[in-house]
């Protein structure tokens, strides 16, 4: 296999996992809202009802988060896949570089959505999110640091540096989702 082809496949597969993990993080939000809603029925119907119905509906701040975050995630996934397909056929370095940096635009929108939801949700929700972010960032940061040390100590050649680096973000999202579920258990919805 050509080195170029292999590297873009690695890139796309790892970025797809990133998108998947981002999806998990946002789904976690839906689950969180569902948990508060007291609605009954099958999950898709429940989700729709939670999103739309009166006083038991998902709060406006979380609806806005989903409205802003999910399209940005979708745009990011589309741009990453487009890069995967187009990178091989584009010879111009400038154009290839543009294809690489283009997904940064929806990432800015994702950051904006996350900052706005943290800022505008209520104080307990903010506390839960910030505790979960603290746990997830420390766990991921020190986890990868220890993993790097372990690789150095054991002289293991199994993991390529770029693949290890690409997995940092998915691990952060996943650990955030799990940490949030764990922290939320302290404050049951009643």
């Amino acid at each position, binding site marked *: 296999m050509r080195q170029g082809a292999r590297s873009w496949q690695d890139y796309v597969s790892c970025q797809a996992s990133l998108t998947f993990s981002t999806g998990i993080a946002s789904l976690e939000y839906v689950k969180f809202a569902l948990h*508060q809603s*007291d609605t009954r029925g099958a999950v898709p119907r429940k989700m729709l009802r939670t999103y739309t119905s009166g*006083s*038991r509906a998902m*709060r406006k701040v979380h609806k806005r988060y989903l409205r802003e975050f999910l399209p940005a995630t979708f745009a990011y996934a589309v741009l990453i896949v487009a890069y995967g397909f187009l990178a091989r056929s584009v010879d111009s370095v400038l154009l290839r570089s543009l294809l690489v940096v283009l997904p940064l635009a929806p990432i800015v929108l994702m950051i904006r959505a996350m900052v706005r939801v943290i800022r505008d*949700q*209520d*104080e*307990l*929700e903010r*506390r839960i999110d910030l505790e979960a972010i603290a746990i997830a960032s420390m766990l991921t940061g020190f986890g990868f640091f220890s993993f790097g040390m372990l690789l150095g100590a054991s002289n293991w050649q199994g993991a390529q540096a770029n693949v290890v680096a690409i997995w940092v973000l998915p691990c952060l999202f996943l650990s955030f989702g799990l940490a949030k579920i764990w922290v*939320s258990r*302290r*404050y*049951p*919805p*009643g």
Partner: protein
Amino acid sequence: MNNQVRELRSAQGWSQAELAERLDVSRQTVNAIETGKYDPSLPLAFGIARLFGLSIESIFLPGEE
């Protein structure tokens, strides 16, 4: 810290969801305050006091340290 939020809410005939909507917080937050698992910030405590037409100190009572 102890509080009278559950009693005041019941006296008004409101559900947790209704109180949460009036205070613009989640039902989880209302439940956490009522069960004493979370002490609200001063602005939220003022909001609760204003909603029930009472002073903060008549709703929130210092617990045992």
